C-alpha cells in the first residue's frame, strides 16, 4: 500500500491559487454508497499515482439530474443541470472525468445545450490514456494473471455512448483472460438499474433483471465480473448473492482491478 494522500476540493485549490488539470466528478453513488466509495478511492489513487493534478467539488457537487430526467421529471433535471453548470463555470472547469456512466452521459450529452460545455471522459478512458502515456505501469503484476474476467457493459457507457473498447483494453492489460458473456457489447443485457429503476421496485414480472444478467455472467465461469458503473456493480453484486456465489465470484470495477494490479 502506498502513502496516504490528500484529495483537494476545487474550493481548496482555488484558495491556493491553483487550477487542476481535470475535475473528478464523483457522483451520488460514488459519494454516499459504501461499496461505490471504494471505486471512488481506487480512481483517486490512480490519478494521484500518475501525478494527475485533479480536484473534486466535494459539498459543492450535486446530482447531475440523470435519475430525475429518466423518471420523466425534466424540471428537476434542468434545475440540477443549471445549478451544476453555474458551479462548474464559476471554477472555469474544462475537463471532467467520472466513474459513473450516468453522470458521464448527462454531463457529456445533455449539459451542452443548457450551456455547460466541457470535455467529459469516463474513467476507463482516462486510465487507458495514462497507461498509453507510460504513466501507469502494470507489467509484472501477477494478481490477475490468467484469471477469468468477464465484463458487463453498462448501458450508458456502451449502447448509449458507443464505448466498448476502453474497459476491455484495461482488462487485457492485467494479463487476465477476458471472457465475453453470450450477450455483450451492443447486445449487452441491462443490469436492471437504469431509467430510475434503481430507486423503485421492479414492475410485476417473473424474474429480476439482475438475476437474468448474473446468469449470463455465471455461464462464463469467470471468477470476476468487472463493471464500469457503480449501479451495475450494486445490481451484479446482488445478483451474485442471489446465487450464493459470493465466495466464487467477485464484482469489481475496472478501476479497482487496475489499482489492485498496480498495488496502489
Amino acid at each position: 500500500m502506498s502513502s496516504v494522500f490528500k484529495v483537494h476540493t476545487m474550493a481548496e485549490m482555488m484558495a491556493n491559487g491553483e487550477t487542476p488539470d481535470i475535475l473528478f466528478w464523483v457522483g451520488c453513488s460514488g459519494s454516499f454508497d459504501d461499496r461505490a466509495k471504494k471505486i471512488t478511492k481506487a480512481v483517486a489513487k490512480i490519478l494521484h499515482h500518475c501525478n494527475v493534478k485533479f480536484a473534486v467539488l466535494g459539498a459543492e457537487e450535486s446530482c447531475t439530474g440523470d435519475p430525475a430526467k429518466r423518471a420523466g421529471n425534466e424540471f428537476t433535471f434542468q434545475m440540477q443541470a443549471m445549478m451544476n453548470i453555474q458551479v462548474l463555470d464559476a471554477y472555469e472547469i474544462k475537463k471532467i472525468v467520472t466513474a459513473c456512466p450516468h453522470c458521464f452521459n448527462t454531463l457529456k450529452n445533455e449539459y451542452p445545450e443548457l450551456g455547460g460545455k466541457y470535455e467529459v471522459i469516463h474513467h476507463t478512458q482516462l486510465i487507458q490514456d495514462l497507461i498509453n502515456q507510460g504513466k501507469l505501469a502494470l507489467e509484472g503484476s501477477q494478481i490477475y494473471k490468467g484469471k477469468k474476467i468477464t465484463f458487463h457493459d453498462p448501458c450508458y457507457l456502451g449502447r448509449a455512448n458507443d464505448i466498448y473498447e476502453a474497459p476491455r483494453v484495461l482488462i487485457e492489460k492485467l494479463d487476465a483472460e477476458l471472457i465475453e458473456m453470450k450477450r455483450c457489447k451492443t447486445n449487452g443485457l441491462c443490469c436492471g438499474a437504469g431509467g430510475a429503476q434503481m430507486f423503485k421496485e421492479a414492475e410485476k414480472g417473473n424474474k429480476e433483471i439482475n438475476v437474468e444478467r448474473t446468469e449470463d455472467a455465471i455461464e462464463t465461469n469467470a471468477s470476476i465480473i468487472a463493471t464500469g458503473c457503480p449501479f451495475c456493480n450494486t445490481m451484479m453484486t446482488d445478483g451474485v448473492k442471489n446465487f450464493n456465489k459470493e465466495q466464487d465470484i467477485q464484482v469489481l470495477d475496472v478501476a479497482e482491478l487496475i489499482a489492485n494490479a498496480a498495488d496502489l
Partner: protein
Amino acid sequence: MSIIIFSILFVVGFYFFTKNILQVRSNILLGQKKKITDNTSERWKTMLLVALGQKKMFSRPIPALLHLCLYAAFIITQIELVEIFTDGFIGSHRFFLPYLGSFYVFMISFIEVLSVLALIATIIFLARRNLLKLHRLNMKELIGWPKKDANLILIMEIFLVTFIFTMNGADEAIQNLKGASYNFAISSHIANFIFGDFNEHTLHVLEQIGWWGHLLMVFTFLNYLPFSKHFHILLAFPNTYYSNLEKKGKFSNLASVTEEVKKMMDPSIDPFAATNAENEAPLRFGAKDVTDLTWKNLLDSYTCTECGRCTSSCPANQTGKLLSPRKIMMDTRDRLVEVGEGKRKNGKDYTDGKSLLGDYITEEEIWACTSCNACVQECPVNIDPLSIIIDLRRYLVMEESKMPSELTGMLTNIENNGAPWQFSPADRGNWINE
C-alpha cells in the same frame, strides 16, 4: 380493349394509392414539429447502409438472409414491372426483348432465380410463424389482425410469384410449340413439365392470366401497404434518413422547461413578460396522446415491421414485465389512425376523449423501462420506442404527478439534498477522509 382496361386499372390503382399516402402524411403531420435538416450526407449514408444495405438485419443472420431473398427479388422485379406497364399501355408483348436481346434473357432469368428463392423464403417465413411458432412472431400483441396481416402478405407473395411463373412458363411453352425457346433460366424448364399438354389457345389464356394476375397483385399490394406492417418496404427509406444521429444516451432537453427554469433561476427576468410566439409553451409537458409526440415518432410507428426484435431484446420483457417496445409502436400507430380518421370525419378540432396513454398504453408498461436502449439498438429500421416511453413518463410526472411512490421520494431527495438518497450534501466529501 385490354389497353383501356389496363389504363383504367392503372389510373384507379394509383389514384387510391396516392390518396392513402396523403392521408398517412397528414396523420404524421399531426405530430409536433421537429426540425431534422442537418447532416444530409450522413443521413444519406445511414439510409444506404441501414435500409438499402439491410445492415442491421444481419445481427440475426437467418431471417436476414431469408428477407434478403424477398427484398432482392422485389427490387429486381421492378424492372420487369416497367415492361409490364409498357406492354399494358401500348399493347405490345415483351417490349424490351428485341432491344435487349441476350441481356433481356439474362435479366428475366435473374428475376426468375430470385423469385424462386423468394418463394422458398416466403414458405419458410410462413413456417416460422405458423409451424415453428417462433416466440418473437407469436407474442400477445400480435393476436388478431397483426397475425392475419403477416400471413396475408406472405400468401399474396406466393400468388405474385405463381403468376410470374404462369406468365413466363406458358409463354415458353408457346415458344416450344414453335420449336423455339426464350431460354429463361427457370421457366424454360418448367414449361414442358407443367404446360406441355396444353394447346396454344389455352397457353395464351394462361399467359394472360399470369400477366393480369401479376398486375393485379401489384396494385393490390400498393393499396394494401398503408394499412399494413408491409408499409415498411417504402417507409424504411425515409425513416432511416431521418434517423437520430446523436448518441443514443442523449435525451431531448425540453425547451419549454428550459424557459421556466431560467425564469426561476434568474430573478431579473419578469416572469409575466410575454414570451415570443416561437417559444410559446406547448399544450402540455410530455405526451399524453399521439399528437403530443413528434412527427418522427409517428413516422416510426408507420414504419414498424412488427418484427419484435426490440421486444425480444428488452430486459423488462424478457423478465416477464408487461412492457413490449413493439407494442408501444403498434399502439402509437393504431391510435394515430384512430385520431386521424376522427379528425377527417368530424373536423380538425375533434377529440374522442381517448388517449394513447391510458386507453392503449398503461402506466405499468412505461414504468418497467430501464432506458437501456436495447430496443433502439436492435431495430433494423432505426425506430426509437424509448423516446415515446420517456415522453409518456414526462406527461405522467410533470402534468399529473403520477409515479411510483419511491420515485416521488427520490425526486424530493434530489430537490432537497442534491442526491437521490436522503444524505446531507455536506457529507458528500466524507469519503476523502474515511
